[in-house]
């Protein structure tokens, strides 16, 4: 097994753990006493350490190890998470992020010497006389990396480093968290079963078998842990054996029965886990589990057991730990002999820690594959319509029914594939709390940042694009919106400003709202600035309405900030926000209340791939699609109403002169309809202008799947893409925003 195979998994998971660290540190900062937050950060750091050491990224392993040491001092009360320490921790997380970035880009790991030294100094200042973290570093590195080896030798780790490892020993492979879950479940009358499954040798669809087993068990209770983790089971990254921990109220016999109904299981061992002894109670042998665990195959378990064993061995503090370590190490060695631990061990084993609370069954899929799937489903839908048209007049019995059935299935398939492309907007939101913390520190403002609706789902492509605009708006809110604490108090507001970011579904759209309780927009200031910039004359400025003034904000290069700060006020911002959102077929609106706050509302389509469109006909046979999003209304006019203004055709519509484009003429459509009579005019919004598009026929409104034009036609202008109509032919989709008069 080469480590490169696992690089992708490593990077993905590292990012997740870094996110967890960021989240945890933020929580810790707001509530320094939070044990949960501390545990979360610690777990993430510990996992990262193991993963990076396994993958051979030394600098990263070293840094995470130092972090772990500091965090552990928090846990033991030897250090407190005060501001300088927290800053250092945040900086370290940033460096780790940079490392991941570099590794992903194939560059060498950036150094972290400065941080390592700072962290070490911190450690030394806090606890004199304790062995320098270096020694612990070596021990810890080998523990998580090589597992059993470190355990057998018993690295000279400091007592602090050894401690967290102990906890796993009561049930090998189960960490503190698992045990907490089990203890809690037990209190509610559940019992925990460790189930060991061995599939028959020639089992073909192992992942399907796993699925059936999981389903059978989930009918009885909740599977809280899988070794190897569910992801690996689904990808068939195991041999024949795996273990599950099931919380159930049913007797063991029921579980046995459920499993025995399934085929291709060669062996199943079910063992009820007994309540763990209190840590430090001095039990020499972990109850039942350890003994049974000896035969426990599966690399994952081996890795975890080895780690826990090693940790205990290193910790000189408790005799119980020492004896536990012997069985742990022996057992690790035993299973290691059977299954040489792969490099993914560290990475995968810990992944389950993060997600085991409700063992979600997920598979990572490349977005490109989903695109292809979507394409094919689209084709299926088209062929289905064709088929139902063809069979319309067929008398043969059963044909109609089966075509209808086909129609139902394809519709369902289509919606499932659509959903598969959806991701929660948390993908973007989750990085903001950290950013807001840094911003408020940098600007000396106090901010309570609230995020709501992070689980709102929308298309992956939209999620990827919406991050930057939101960053702009959040920065604006902190920099321009929220006043400094003194000013807020003077204005009778709480010193701590509030910024709220929320997302929710609204019909076929997602509404993202970003509000602050700051000073709101200063219209007079915008008016003054507009004159200063020479955008309008003083006289014109006086006549600008509120709406006009707000619109000014969205003009390129327009900023009301008096001074340029690091954060914003450079005059790039709202115009970029609007153009980005518009490019996503969305819209931005502002509501404000002078002195009370500002709210930005961003409306986005759920997906970029499917839109509502009006189909129009030109000439005898050409069909084009106009996105409904861009259409204001459709009117009928007679030729006489169209007049030329400076040689260009215009129509006076509701007292507004709007340019008229004869599409058939523009597109040089053969056999276009000419001559008098009533003509259909589609009024579209193109940026801030309105334009009337003259078409020969109105065909109707339809949901269409947007497909890109490839090659030289891509970006050739005029069309955003094309779609395939019910009869299999292609219709081009007008790029209304880029229409030229």
């Amino acid at each position, binding site marked *: 097994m080469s480590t490169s195979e696992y690089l992708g998994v490593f990077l993905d998971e590292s990012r997740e753990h870094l996110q967890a660290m960021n989240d945890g540190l933020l929580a810790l900062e707001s509530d320094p006493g939070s044990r949960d937050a501390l545990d979360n950060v610690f777990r993430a750091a510990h996992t990262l350490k193991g993963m990076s050491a396994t993958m051979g990224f030394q600098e990263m392993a070293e840094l995470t190890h130092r972090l772990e040491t500091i965090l552990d001092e928090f846990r033991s009360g030897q250090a407190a998470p005060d501001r300088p320490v927290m800053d250092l921790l945040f900086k370290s997380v940033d460096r780790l992020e940079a490392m991941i970035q570099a590794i992903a880009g194939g560059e060498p790991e950036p150094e972290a010497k400065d941080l390592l030294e700072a962290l070490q100094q911190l450690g030394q200042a806090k606890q004199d006389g304790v062995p320098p973290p270096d020694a612990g570093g070596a021990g810890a590195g080998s523990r998580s990396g090589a597992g059993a080896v470190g355990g057998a030798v018993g690295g000279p780790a400091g007592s602090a480093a050894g401690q967290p490892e102990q906890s796993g020993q009561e049930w090998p492979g189960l960490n503190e968290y698992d045990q907490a879950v089990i203890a809690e479940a037990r209190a509610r009358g559940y019992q925990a079963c460790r189930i060991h499954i061995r599939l028959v040798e020639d089992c073909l669809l192992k992942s399907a078998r796993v699925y059936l087993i999981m389903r059978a068990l989930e009918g009885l209770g909740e599977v809280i842990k899988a070794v190897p983790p569910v992801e690996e089971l689904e990808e068939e990254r195991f041999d024949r054996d795996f273990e599950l921990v099931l919380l159930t109220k049913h007797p063991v016999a029921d579980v046995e029965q459920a499993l025995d109904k399934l085929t291709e299981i060669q062996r199943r061992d079910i063992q009820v886990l007994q309540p763990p002894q209190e840590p430090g109670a001095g039990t020499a042998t972990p109850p039942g589990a350890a003994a049974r665990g000896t035969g426990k195959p599966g690399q994952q378990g081996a890795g975890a057991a080895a780690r826990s064993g090693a940790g205990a061995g290193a910790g000189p503090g408790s005799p119980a730990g020492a004896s536990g370590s012997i069985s742990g190490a022996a057992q690790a060695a035993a299973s290691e002999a059977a299954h040489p631990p792969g490099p993914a061990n560290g990475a995968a084993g810990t992944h389950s820690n993060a997600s085991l609370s409700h063992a979600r069954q997920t598979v990572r899929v490349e977005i490109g594959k989903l695109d292809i799937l979507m394409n094919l489903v689209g084709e299926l839908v088209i062929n289905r319509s064709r088929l139902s048209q063809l069979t319309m007049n067929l008398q043969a019995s059963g044909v109609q029914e089966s075509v209808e059935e086909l129609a139902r299935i394809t519709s369902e398939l289509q919606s499932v594939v659509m959903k598969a492309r959806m991701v929660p907007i948390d993908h973007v939101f989750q990085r903001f709390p950290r950013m807001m913390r840094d911003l408020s520190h940098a600007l000396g403002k106090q901010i309570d940042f609230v995020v709501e609706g992070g689980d709102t789902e929308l298309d992956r492509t939209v999620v990827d694009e919406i991050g930057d605009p939101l960053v702009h708006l959040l920065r604006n809110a902190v920099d321009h919106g929220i006043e400094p604490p003194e000013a807020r108090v003077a204005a009778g507001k709480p010193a701590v400003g509030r910024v709220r970011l929320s997302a929710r579904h609204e019909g076929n759209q997602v509404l993202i709202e970003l509000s602050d309780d700051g000073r709101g927009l200063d219209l007079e200031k915008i008016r003054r600035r507009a004159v200063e910039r020479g955008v309008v004359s003083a006289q014109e400025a006086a006549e600008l309405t509120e709406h006009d003034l707000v619109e000014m904000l969205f003009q390129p290069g327009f900023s009301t900030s008096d001074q340029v700060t690091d954060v914003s006020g450079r005059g790039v911002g709202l115009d970029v926000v609007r153009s980005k959102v518009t490019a996503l077929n969305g819209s931005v609106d502002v509501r404000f209340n002078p002195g009370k706050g500002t709210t930005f509302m961003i409306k986005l389509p759920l997906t970029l791939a499917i839109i509502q469109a009006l189909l129009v006909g030109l000439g005898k046979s050409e069909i084009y699609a106009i996105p409904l999003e861009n259409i204001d209304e459709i009117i009928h006019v007679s030729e006489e109403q169209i007049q030329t203004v400076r040689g260009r055709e215009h129509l006076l519509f509701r007292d507004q002169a709007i340019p008229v484009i004869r599409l058939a003429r523009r*597109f040089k459509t053969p056999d276009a309809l000419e001559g008098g009579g009533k003509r259909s005019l589609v009024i579209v919004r193109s940026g801030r202008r309105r334009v009337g598009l003259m078409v020969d026929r109105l065909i109707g409104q339809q949901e269409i799947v947007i497909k890109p034009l490839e090659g*030289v036609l891509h970006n050739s202008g005029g069309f955003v893409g094309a779609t395939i109509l019910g009869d299999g032919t292609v219709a081009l989709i007008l790029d209304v925003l880029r229409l030229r008069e």
Partner: protein
Amino acid sequence: MAAFTQQVVVVKLGNEEYGFDIGNVQEIKEVVPVTRVPGAPAHILGVFNLRGRIVPLVDLAELLQLRKVRGPAGRAAPAVTDAEAPVAAGAERRIVVVEGDGHSAGFLVDGVRETLVFSSSQVEWVGETAANLGGFAAGAAGAAGAAAAAGAAPGGLALTDDAAGASSSAGSSGALVRGVIKHQGRMILWLDASLLVGQA
């Protein structure tokens, strides 16, 4: 250049023969209706639906500037009006879907003849001896040898018929043709499939 053998799909364009590297040919389709794209370059007839993908259809004759060989290209269902090859090729007309650089394009040809294996010794490269071949000379190796073209390429190559047209197009069409495959007295122009797709 080291010796090699290669396989091409031989297609007809008027009375000339052209070869696409078989590795680049995705499929050969009957002619389907295309949707015209207003404002597109002249050699792009439009786009069509290839199993859910929107693929451009290229008028190969137009791209190679063979107006003299093939009449002015009609749209959607172009008709052959070539006086030198009066055989109406309508029924044999096909779309060759070619892949290169990650995307595909369809090329309208007057017919598909065969697949042919040839060796490097059968090739006259553009820029070497084939520099003498009419219009390709300008694009590949300067116009010096153009005068000798008639002798080197008797009969089949109509490229020299329209000297002005050929030389003006030579810059692009010359580069699109790698060389001439000489096979049992026939001359097959060997196309650079990736470059061709890049034109679509």
